């Protein structure tokens, strides 16, 4: 027990390059900014968060508004939401920006509970982690202002990235075991994806009544459930990538299957598919924004060298 506790303490005490976490910060910030601009350009802030007397949909704003919303009103809440997102995107005081985003989004969730979607919950959870992280260490205006360069070879605590990774995997696994409808399973003829594609409130394409598409949708339904239920195996695969020695049969099998990359590619395809076929706002993009957390920074920099610090600025290895 003591050995395992020490291993956990050491894991959460590790430091790594900031690239992966900075990518998450930047991409989540971009999604929030896009969402905030949608609200601004569509003029829906007073509708969503205004009191019914002012033509809005939020009784709470009239009866017992959350303190921040009471202080700044619907437009002010939108301004804070945008400010928080922009701060994360630009990497300008991102810790403060994450806190502002978290508080504004928390008030938004209370003002109109049914307007708050799962992805908004996810963004708040990530914002809380970013409050305690050094996500602005690279790929940020903060880095530029401090060192004259956007990209810095600096080491930061690894635990915020690991927590985001854990949160992402839990989200999928939880979504898998909460799939209660028969249509997700063979005894419900695996019709879930077909049903969603034929729901006018969500579907963005007309797939008609094609038998081929019907059978393809059944495969996609099965694939979705398998993808979500196998999310915990990513933890095993990630552990195996860090500790390749002494792997048993199961870990070796995952390695042979290249499980880690296959699972990630499936997830990315899944979200790009959702973005192309369903009308679900920022959900697919904001989920994809968390994927850099699944890739260790040195691997990410190997794939995309332009994300890493310029060679001349890297510290010599100890």
């Amino acid at each position, binding site marked *: 027990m003591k050995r395992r506790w020490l291993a956990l303490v050491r894991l959460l005490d590790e430091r790594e390059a900031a690239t992966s976490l900075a990518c998450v910060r930047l991409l989540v910030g971009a999604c929030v900014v896009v969402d905030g601009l949608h609200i601004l350009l569509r003029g829906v802030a007073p509708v*969503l968060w205004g009191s019914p007397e002012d033509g809005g949909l939020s009784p709470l704003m009239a009866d017992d508004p959350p303190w921040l919303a009471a202080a700044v009103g619907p437009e002010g809440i939108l301004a804070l939401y945008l400010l928080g997102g922009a701060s994360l995107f630009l990497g300008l005081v991102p810790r403060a920006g994450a806190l502002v985003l978290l508080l504004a989004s928390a008030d938004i969730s209370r003002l109109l509970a049914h307007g708050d979607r799962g992805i908004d919950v996810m963004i708040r959870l990530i914002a809380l982690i970013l409050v305690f992280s050094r996500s602005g260490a690279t790929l940020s205006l903060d880095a530029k202002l401090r060192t004259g360069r956007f990209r810095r070879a600096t080491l930061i605590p690894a635990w915020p990235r690991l927590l985001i990774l854990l949160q992402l995997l839990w989200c999928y696994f939880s*979504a898998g075991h909460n*799939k209660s409808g028969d249509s997700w399973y063979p005894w419900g003829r695996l019709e879930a994806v077909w049903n969603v594609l034929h729901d006018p409130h969500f579907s963005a394409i007309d797939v008609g*009544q094609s038998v081929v598409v019907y059978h393809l949708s059944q495969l996609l339904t099965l694939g979705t459930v398998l993808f979500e239920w196998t999310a915990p195996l990513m933890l095993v695969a990630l552990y195996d990538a860090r500790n390749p020695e002494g792997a048993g049969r199961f870990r070796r099998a995952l390695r042979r299957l290249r499980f*880690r990359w296959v699972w990630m590619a499936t997830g990315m395809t899944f979200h790009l598919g959702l973005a192309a076929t369903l009308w679900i706002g920022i959900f697919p993009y904001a989920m994809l924004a968390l994927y850099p957390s699944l890739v260790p920074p040195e691997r990410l920099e190997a794939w995309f060298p332009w994300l890493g610090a310029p060679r001349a600025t890297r510290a010599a290895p100890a």
Partner: protein
Amino acid sequence: MEPSAEPPAETAPTTPAPAAPAPSRWAHLRAGTIALVVFVHFCQGAPRPRVNAASAAKPAAAEQIHAWAGRLGMTPEELTERLIMISDEGDRVRQAIAGPPWKIFGRLGFEQRWALFSGSRKRAWRMSIAWRAPGRPWTFAYRVRDPEHRWNARQLDYRRIRGVWNPGPDEPRPGYGLFVDWVARTLCADVPEAREVRVRHTRVDPRPPGEPASAQPEYGFVEYRRCAREATP
């Protein structure tokens, strides 16, 4: 590409070597705090049925309970009773373990029970908004996925607004009445001849290829509002 046999270990640049010094007290404290927070979040999101007598009686849930009771060789009543018992017990344990800290996380709008298209409804609807002048037929102003009727689509299509008008499995969302009030107010202001506004959902259930569509249209969540106009002299 990752070699399958003996891949190099993916370790952080400064991952301690075998002779690493013992972690500091701060490292222990941080690990303890993170472990506690993760545990509390896990307790909140741990799989468990959340059923009470009212929710079990709703048509979508009742349909599921009926199907599962058959598979498990029980009566629907027995299964409902057992589910409610497990649900209550689960809630009690969760409340005892994670209740107090979750008060803080709950205020931040956190949730760890993710239900993404969990039900994937066999019952689908298509929302429409229409108006009429006295003695005239209804005229569509907005209809979901209808390029001909796009009144105020800029606002109505936004995902957070849709969250209010898109119904749950069995009933409209709590803010639906206020939504209809807002729609009526805005539409009456935009269309001077409108005297009455209707918001309703038409059943458009998905059906597998070859299965005939229902001949009779079915409507739900129908709401009417009169335009509040000044009496003309």
